[in-house]
């Protein structure tokens, strides 16, 4: 916006804070990849939340506290693996890339003990890699796509999304924060179908939880820098996922 005549131009945001280092094209790419409406099947899964709602544990009143704690546990794990996928873009040798890709996916599968959530993560990762076929050409992306399309080719969503952002050269911190926001938006969308949660309240929660998203982003980057393994302890949500197939009525798939 042009400055009014006679007045000094408006100052931009302070420059000594976070440097995004994003080209406009990368911003647009990130917006598309982290859109909650990305057709990868995320809206078909509740990741255990439907059971918690059915048992009257999760309510609109308890939702904010739940999401905060959930992000600091499960969000941290997903965030660290997103970062590992992102950093895999620095591995240029195809053989080494394949070995590391398989190992990371196997590790994440072993960490996701609930089959429902594990399968959902794998399915979404596979769909994401399939979706971006033809969007841009990259040897390692092709390798990951080929492995994902094999019957036993496990490709978790967090790793696939991280790899894509890494290959596109999108700043890791920004991409990680956007990925976590996408995860949170997907949970809120699930809650809107399960609970009397309106658009305004859901959007308000998404807004209010941004400091938590940034804190988890920072923690995940810390774990990545230190080479440490993230903690995750969400037994009730995990049990919700394990018990989901036995609910009498299900809006989401198991």
């Amino acid at each position, binding site marked *: 916006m042009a400055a009014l005549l006679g007045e000094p131009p408006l100052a931009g945001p302070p420059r000594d804070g976070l440097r995004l280092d994003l080209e406009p094209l990368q911003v647009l790419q990130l917006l598309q990849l982290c859109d909650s409406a990305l057709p990868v099947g995320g809206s078909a899964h509740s990741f255990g939340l439907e059971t*918690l709602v059915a*048992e009257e*544990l*999760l309510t609109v009143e*308890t939702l904010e*506290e*739940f999401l905060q*704690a*959930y992000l*600091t*546990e*499960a969000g941290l794990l997903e965030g660290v693996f997103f970062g590992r996928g992102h950093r895999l873009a620095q591995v240029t040798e195809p053989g080494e890339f394949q070995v590391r890709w398989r190992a990371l996916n*196997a*590790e994440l*599968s*072993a*960490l996701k*003990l*609930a*089959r*429902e959530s*594990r399968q959902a993560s794998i399915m979404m990762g596979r769909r994401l890699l399939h979706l971006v076929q033809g969007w841009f050409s990259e040897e390692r992306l092709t390798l990951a796509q080929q492995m994902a399309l094999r019957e036993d080719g*496990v490709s978790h969503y967090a790793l696939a999304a991280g790899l894509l952002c890494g290959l596109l050269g999108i700043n890791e911190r920004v991409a990680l924060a956007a990925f976590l926001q996408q995860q949170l938006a997907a949970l809120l969308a699930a809650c809107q179908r399960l609970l009397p949660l309106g658009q305004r309240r859901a959007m308000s929660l998404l807004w209010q939880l941004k400091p938590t998203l940034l804190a988890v982003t920072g923690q995940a980057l810390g774990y990545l820098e230190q080479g440490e*393994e*993230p*903690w*995750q*302890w*969400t*037994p*009730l*949500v*995990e*049990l919700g*996922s*394990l*018990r989901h*197939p*036995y609910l009498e009525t299900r809006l989401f798939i198991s």
Partner: protein
Amino acid sequence: MQALGSEPREEATEEEPAAESDEREGQEQPDTPGYRQAVAGWLRLGFGYERATGRSRLLVQEQRPPLQVVRAFSTDEGGALVHVHNLSGGVLGGDRCELAIEVGPGARAMLTSTGATRLYRPRAADCPALQRWQVQVGAGALLEHLPDALIPFAGARYRQEVTIALAEDAGLFWWEIVAPGRVARGECFTYEWLELLLTITSAGCPLAIERFRLEPTARPPLSLARLGPYRYCASLYVCRTGQPPQRWADLEAELAALAQELSRPGCCVWGVSRLPADGLVVRGLAQEGLTLGHQLPEFWRLARLRLYGSAVPLPRKIY
């Protein structure tokens, strides 16, 4: 039960501590009045299958207090049952206990505790307590680890690392029950932190990984994302490498039916899930420890019956 002719050989002596222990002890003994010397317990057990008798045999290769095994008992099906004692009655601040368990090809071993594992309140200067398990289950062997609950006292700081490697056709039943504290004394989630790590691999491939940090002050356990309305948690890992996926699908369905039957939301809930390969996990949460302790063995019995064709009695104990 009949006692086996086990041959205890105490190889580790005060003069021959493990090199790592020496280093730790050098680091962890501040010159504080009343400071308790750090304890480095060590237990190395080897089980072998004796073809002539058709029975499994225990060799106590090394043991060092506070860890001790007195003898092995023969189970009805020729396995070896061993009670792992902690002579100090529990885990004290600064304790570092290492357990190396090797079940040789074809052998069957069952390990249990002599009571709940009490995690005592440490002194302020104590390092966190550590218990580390290195477990190898050989080809065609079976290991069952059926201990009593972990009870963390107020202020406890404890890290438990378990690494289990399974060979071809190796079997595993491994359970863990974690209590919120000394409930009868009014202590509930008053420990400082617990770190519980577990990794199960088969042919170098991870089957299950747990990295739990329970830290009541920073991460409220009663949050809905964690325990919600429950206080006790339990898990049982059931593995047998090389079994076809359909067998696990069938067993999962059968155990899930049991889980549904036993679950009473608000009181106790159970769930079952196949691992990425070669096994499954049973999880339970409960308000009361007794419910969990009584129901967990039902999953073990059923899974054992399906995978090994027989169920054996739980280790007998007198409290």
